[in-house]
């Protein structure tokens, strides 16, 4: 292959009136787009490798840079779009599967934006969270059918619960897919705000054991980093069956990212690929899952809730019911917009269903079967703001997982190139030069600020609805109205239309 047909996707505009030739952009671009030309005595750019991560734009001290979509256009074609054509050029050159990062970016409808919240007027006072208590405490875990109380004392302890001060947790992201500094940022923020982060299938780095009380340790199909201390270290254990961005697909951490620390943490040789199989090879059925759930409970003396994470697929309600009956304490459901460090593009963009529908269907199904209280529901897959959180809880979730939102708080600019390992923001990379760009003190503060900001907003919305404890919002679908939805969509979501 001699000539590549690929052309730059972006155009970098440098305002020469502002550029002071300080070379900060040159220093910062891991893709080597900017360079200082000694002969010309000025900074130039070759955009072919530009991913529009905005690092240079943000770091430029004189705001001399902007990145735009390349003005270069193919002949207009509503069917063969530029994306469609370019994808073919890439595959014609490489013969490989198209890879991408982060969540589905296709223009499917966003159902959160088709639901509106209620507020109190006259007949029921709204509550001012600045003046009245407003409670967000949430418990995740199996609730018993009844309490056994004798002489004013709890006679039987209730099953283990995760206690959250805010119904938002950081979703699974492994050490390997993201940097240790990124994980430290989230772990500290979780501890500070009384919630949890999730190890993903990356094991638990030795520096992270101190955050154990705020850690959910994951057991996934590759079983990387799983050992007795690991299981004991976390507050809960999550069995990962699937992920919203790539349902039915395993994971692959290329060998170049498996440095000494990743290798130690995952318990695999340095430089080898870490391949998580598509299924767990000891789980080919629901009864196999049950066995693993109870094995993990046994291994941790029934002291920790066990969560099972699945991708939202067509038959999610029945699957969730099975998982509840298999003994899971928490079910995490990841919608088709869920993020990823690396996924085959066609899988990410075409497999799975929206979390809004998956949640509504699962919650309704578990209630129909009278087992909703046996299990907690955590939903993920593009929770973008506090209103999404409130809507998710009103639809029936106990809590939400956020990951993309958390990474954006840390600096992610959604360039979708996580899989290259060249994250200029120090997040999705193991390159020490890049990793240090994310100072976990700053990262923790930013992630904690995000949680606090959402907490304030959730309280305002609850107060407006005349609710002062989050449990009175859970499954309270009367607080939602659908706008621009079909009769069938409304029916599945279990909500009325606006004006009804």
């Amino acid at each position, binding site marked *: 292959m001699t000539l590549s047909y690929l052309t730059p996707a972006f155009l970098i505009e440098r305002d020469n009136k502002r550029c002071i030739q300080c070379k900060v952009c040159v220093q910062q671009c891991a893709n080597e787009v900017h360079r200082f030309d000694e002969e010309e005595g000025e900074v130039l750019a070759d955009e072919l490798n530009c991913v529009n991560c905005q690092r240079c734009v943000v770091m430029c001290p004189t705001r001399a840079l902007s990145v735009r979509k390349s003005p270069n256009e193919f002949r207009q074609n509503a069917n063969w779009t530029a994306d469609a054509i370019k994808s073919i050029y890439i595959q014609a050159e490489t013969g490989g599967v198209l890879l991408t990062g982060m969540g589905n970016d296709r223009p499917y409808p966003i159902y959160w934006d088709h639901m509106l919240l209620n507020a109190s007027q006259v007949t029921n006072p709204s509550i001012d969270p600045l003046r009245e208590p407003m409670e967000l405490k949430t418990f995740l875990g199996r609730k018993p059918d009844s309490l056994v109380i004798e002489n004013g004392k709890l006679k039987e302890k209730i099953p283990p619960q995760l206690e959250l001060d805010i119904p938002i947790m950081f979703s699974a992201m492994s050490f390997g897919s993201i940097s240790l500094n990124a994980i430290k940022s989230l772990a500290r923020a979780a501890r500070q705000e009384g919630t949890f982060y999730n190890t993903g299938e990356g094991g638990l780095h030795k520096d992270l054991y101190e955050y154990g009380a705020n850690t959910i340790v994951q057991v996934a199909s590759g079983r990387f980093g799983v050992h007795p201390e690991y299981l004991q270290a976390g507050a809960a254990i999550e069995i990962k069956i699937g992920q919203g961005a790539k349902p039915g697909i395993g994971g692959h951490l290329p060998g170049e990212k498996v440095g000494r620390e990743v290798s130690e943490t995952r318990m695999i040789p340095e430089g080898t690929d870490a391949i998580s199989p598509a299924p767990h090879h000891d789980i080919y059925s629901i009864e196999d899952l049950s066995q693993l759930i109870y094995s993990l409970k046994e291994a941790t003396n029934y002291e920790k809730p066990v969560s099972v994470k699945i991708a939202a697929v067509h038959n999610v309600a029945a699957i969730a019911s099975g998982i509840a009956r298999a003994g899971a304490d928490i079910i995490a459901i990841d919608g088709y917009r869920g993020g990823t460090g690396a996924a085959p593009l066609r899988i990410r963009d075409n497999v799975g269903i929206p979390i809004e529908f998956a949640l509504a269907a699962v919650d309704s199904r578990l209630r129909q079967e009278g087992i909703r209280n046996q299990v907690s529901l955590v939903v993920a897959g593009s929770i973008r703001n506090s209103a999404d959180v409130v809507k998710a809880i009103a639809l029936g979730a106990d809590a939400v997982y956020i990951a993309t939102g958390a990474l954006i708080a840390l600096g992610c600019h959604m360039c979708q190139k996580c899989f290259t390992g060249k994250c200029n923001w120090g997040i999705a990379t193991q390159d020490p030069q890049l990793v240090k760009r994310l*100072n976990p003190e700053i990262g923790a503060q930013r992630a904690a600020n995000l949680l606090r900001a959402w907490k304030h907003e959730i309280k305002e919305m609850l107060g407006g609805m005349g609710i002062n404890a989050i449990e009175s919002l859970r499954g309270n679908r009367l607080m939602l109205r659908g706008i621009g939805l079909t009769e069938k969509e409304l029916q599945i979501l279990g909500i009325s239309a606006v004006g009804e």
Partner: protein
Amino acid sequence: MKRVYAREEFCVGCRLCQVHCVTAHSPYKNDIVKAFKKSNPRPLPRVIVEENRPLSFALQCRHCEEANCTKACITGAMQKDPVTGVVTNDETRCVGCWTCILVCPHGAIVQDERGKKVAAKCDLCSGLKEMPACVQHCPNGALLYQEDESQVRA
């Protein structure tokens, strides 16, 4: 006294400290573009970025308790303020003999030969009310301005 401490584990080698040092020592303290394009001569950065990737850190005058440079200075231009402890070079008295550079154990003094030969060094932005410009503008908390070395390690 308050000094600038570098945290190499967070230094990203961007050299924004230098950009802001130049600006802070130019006549255009609030305009980076003018500081670079109109100052004549443009001040040299008094902070030095040492780099051997992935290692990097910003270095500037340590304002030593027993400052060799002040003792070696042949004209008395290099002085340590007895109250603030800041070591400064009075460029009007400096003759550019480079003796201070010779004795500085940190390599924190640079030669400025673009006009009159003078030794240029960090003055902790004495003209600025808040913290030194390099600390204030470090994007990653890799520079701290404080009394002692605590909290320097993450």
